[in-house]
C-alpha cells in the first residue's frame, strides 16, 4: 500500500487540540506526538524514530511527561498518539534528570559518535560517569547505539533481511548472519541513510560496493553503457526494474542517471523537431 492510496481511501483524520509546554497545537487524531512536536519545531531528542517505520520505542530519549488529572507520567512521545485534550510537558525536571543519565549512557556506549556528542551537549551533557566502551574490532567504530533502524529498514522497508541483531542484552550487535558476507544485501544503502549516528561504513570501490560494517559484503555495481561509470548495485537494480513498466526500462537498466538524462532529452528534441537538425 502506498501513501497515495492511504490518503485517497481513508477519510482525513479528525483535528484535535493538544497542549505542548502550555501552548495549544492542532494535530490529526491519532498522529504520533513526536511527529507533531517536530512539525511544530519543538525539540525532542530521538534516535530510533523514523517516519516510514512503525514506532519502536527503544532509544527512550523522546520521553515526555503526560499530564493527567494534575499528575505527570513519563511516556515515550513516539508511541503516544494525539488525542483531544492531550497535555504534555517536554522538559520537566523528571524528564531532564532521566534524559541526562540516558545521554551519559549513550556517551559511554558510542564514545566515537560525534552526533551523540553534539546531541548530548545540546542538552547540557558533556561528560559521562560510566565506563566508555572501547572495542577496536567494532565494525561500527564504537558509534552504534543499537537503535535498530538499519535492521528494520533492511527488513521491513527493503525486504532484504541482510542484517539483524546478534546475541542479546549488553552483548547485542548488528551484523550479517554468522558475521559473513551475505548475498541478501542489495547494496541499497538504506541502512546508511537511516543510521542516526553515521556509524555504518559503505564505499564504492571500482566495480563493487563494499558494505564495510557488514562483514565487508561486496555488491557488484552496474556499469553505464555510455560513460563507463559504475552507478547502481546490480541486485538493487534488478529488484527495482522488476517493478518498472515504463518504456524507458532499457535506459534505466543500462545508463547512469546523468547519461540517461542526456539521452532522454536528446530523444525528446528529436521527436519534437521531427529529426531535422
Amino acid at each position: 500500500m502506498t501513501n497515495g492510496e492511504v490518503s485517497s481511501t481513508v477519510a482525513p483524520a479528525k483535528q484535535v487540540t493538544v497542549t505542548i509546554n502550555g501552548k495549544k497545537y492542532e494535530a490529526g487524531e491519532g498522529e504520533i506526538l513526536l511527529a507533531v512536536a517536530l512539525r511544530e519545531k519543538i525539540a525532542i531528542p530521538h534516535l530510533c524514530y523514523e517516519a516510514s517505520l512503525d514506532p519502536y520505542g527503544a532509544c527512550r530519549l523522546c520521553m515526555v511527561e503526560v499530564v493527567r488529572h494534575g499528575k505527570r507520567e513519563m511516556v515515550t512521545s513516539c508511541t503516544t498518539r494525539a488525542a483531544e485534550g492531550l497535555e504534555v510537558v517536554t522538559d520537566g525536571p523528571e524528564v531532564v534528570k532521566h534524559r541526562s543519565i540516558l545521554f551519559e549512557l549513550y556517551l559511554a556506549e558510542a564514545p566515537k559518535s560525534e552526533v551523540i556528542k553534539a546531541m548530548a551537549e545540546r542538552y547540557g551533557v558533556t561528560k559521562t560517569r560510566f565506563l566508555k566502551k572501547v572495542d577496536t574490532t567494532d565494525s561500527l567504530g564504537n558509534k552504534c547505539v543499537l537503535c535498530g533502524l538499519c535492521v528494520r529498514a533492511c527488513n521491513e522497508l527493503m525486504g532484504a533481511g541482510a542484517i539483524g541483531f546478534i546475541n542479546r542484552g549488553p552483548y547485542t550487535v548488528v551484523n550479517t548472519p554468522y558475521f559473513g558476507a551475505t548475498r541478501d544485501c542489495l547494496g541499497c544503502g538504506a541502512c546508511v541513510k537511516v543510521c542516526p549516528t553515521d556509524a555504518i561504513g559503505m564505499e564504492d570501490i571500482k566495480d563493487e560496493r563494499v558494505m564495510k560494517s557488514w562483514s565487508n559484503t561486496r555488491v557488484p555495481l552496474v556499469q553505464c553503457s555510455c560513460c563507463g561509470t559504475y552507478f547502481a548495485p546490480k541486485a538493487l537494480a534488478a529488484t527495482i526494474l522488476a517493478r518498472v513498466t515504463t518504456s524507458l526500462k532499457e535506459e534505466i537498466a543500462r545508463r547512469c542517471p546523468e547519461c540517461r538524462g542526456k539521452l532522454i532529452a536528446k530523444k525528446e528534441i528529436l521527436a519534437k523537431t521531427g529529426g531535422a537538425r
Partner: protein
Amino acid sequence: MKIKSVSDLAARRKVGLQKIQPGKPRIAVGLATCGIAVGGKRVYERLKEIIDKNGLDITLTTVGCIGYCKEEPLVNITIPGKPLVILHKVSETDAEEIIRTVSNGEVPYDKALCQVPAWDHVKGCTLDYGKGFDRIPLYADIPFFRHQKKVILRDAGLINPEDIDEYIAIGGYTAAMKALTGMDPEAIIKEVEKSGLRGRGGAGFPTGLKWRITRDAKADKKYIICNADEGDPGAYMNRNEMESDPHMLIEGLIIGAFAMGAAEGLIYIRAEYPLAIKRLKLAIEQAWEYGILGKDIFGTGFVFDIGIATGAGAFVCGESTALVASIEGRTGRPHPRPPRLTDIGGGLFGYPTDLNNVETWCNVPVIISNGSDWYQAIGAKGNTGTKVFSLVGKVDRVGLVEVPLGTTLNTIVSDIGNGGANNKKVKAVQTGGPSGGCIPFRLFDTPVDFESLNKAGSIMGSGGIVVMDEDTDMVDIARYFINFATGESCGKCVPCREGLKHSLLLLNRIMAKKGTKKDIETLALLSDTIVATSLCGLGQTAPNPVLTTLAYFREEYDALVKP
C-alpha cells in the same frame, strides 16, 4: 469413552475413587521433579521390584508433591480404613521395611511425618481415609502445614497427575461441567470478577476485567494463553502445580475459553520443565479421549483445544509481548504497549488474546465450583484468595507454602519456615524474583499482598521468597540479581541494556573495594533512571534489589567504599 453428561462424569468418578482408595494398601511415591531429584525414582523402583517379586496385592503409584521440600522423598501410604500416612526422607533402603509393615496393615512409624484422616479437595469433595495410627501426629499439627491453606495445591501430592480418573475422582471437571452446561459466559465472568481474583503472575491485574476486555474485543477469533514461563531464580510454584495437578490447569483453561469465546488455547511453557511438559501433554491427550477437549465438549457443541508451545530459555519471554513474539517464531523482544494483547492487532497472530499465569488459571475451577462468596472470604480485602510461595534460601523448612494473601512475612518465614537454617538469624527476604526487592527483618510484619509489598519497595512477582541470614552479604545479593537481569535483558532499550550493565560494573567495583561514595550515588541515580525509562517490566523492576538494599542496608555498601 466420551463424557457427555453429569451422570457420565459421576460414573467416571467412581472408577477414579477405586484407584485412590482401592480397598487394598496403596503406596504412592512423590515424583515431581523435586522428588525425583532426591531419589524418589529409586525408591519407586525398589518398591516395585519387591512387590513384583513377591506378587503382593499392593497398589504402587506416583503422585505429585505436597510441597515439603525439606522432607523429601515423600511416600504416601493408604491402608483401607486407616488414615493416609505421609512418610518422609525415604530412601530405597527403607523399601523392604515399608513393604513388610504395609503387608501387616501397619506403617513404619519412625519414617512417618504425619497422618491425614480426611483431606478436603476443596471443590465440594472431602476424602475420608479413616482413623488409627494414634502415635503419628496429625497433618494439621505439623508446624509447616498448620498455617497453610491449600486451595491451589488442593490435590498436589495426593493424586496421580498422570491419571485423569483420579482427578475426576476428587471432583475434577465438575466446575467445567457446571460452567459449560449451566452458566452463560457473562455469568462466568461476573463470578470471576466478584471473586476479586488478581493475576498471579506478579502484576495483580484483575482477572475478571481482563477476561471481559478479551470477551468484548470484536474479532472472529480469540486466543487464550497460559503463561508457564516461570523463570525467577528460586521460584517453582508453577512447575509443581503443573507436575502435580495438570488437569486443574486444563479445567481452568476450558472455563476461560468458554467465557471469552476462544477455540484455541496455548500453554507457553519453558523447555527446562520437561516433566511438566510431559504430564501436560498426557493430560491433554486424556482429556481428548474423554471428550473434555475437542469438538464437542461434554456434548455441548463447544469446541476447544489446547496446544503446547515451549520457550527457548529467555527470561524476558515471560513478558506478554515478548511471549507472543516467541510463539509466533520471532525474537523474544518486548514491544511498547498499547497495543495490548487483548487489543485487535496486539495479541497472538494479531487476534485478541488473554494471557494469565498458571496459578491464575488454577484458581478458576474452585471459584466456579464454590462460588465467589466463598473465594472472597479467603485472604484480605482487595487481595482475595491464596498464593503459593516457594520458600527457599537460608531458611530451615524449605518448601512450597500456600497461604491466604495478607499473611505476614513473619508467619511465612518464622512460623512455617521455622526461621533461619542452622539456627542462624534471618536478616531479610527477597520476594518476587530477580525484580523484587529485599525486605529487612524489622519489616516482617508486612502482610504479603500486592500493595504492601510494593510499599516496602518489593513486588509480589510470581511468588519466590528467598531468605537471607546474618551471613548473607546484601551487596553481593544485589550484584547477583543485577547480573541475572543483565544477562536476561533482551537488549532493545538503552536503560535496561546499558544501564544494567553499568550497574553491574559499579557493583563489581564496590564489591572489589575499589569504589567510592560517589559510585554509590551514581548507582542510585542510575537505578532510578532504569526504573523510570525502561520499555518493559523487566527493566522497570530490575533495579529493585539495588534500590531496596540501598534503602535498608546502606551501611553494608558504606563499609565497602572509601570515604
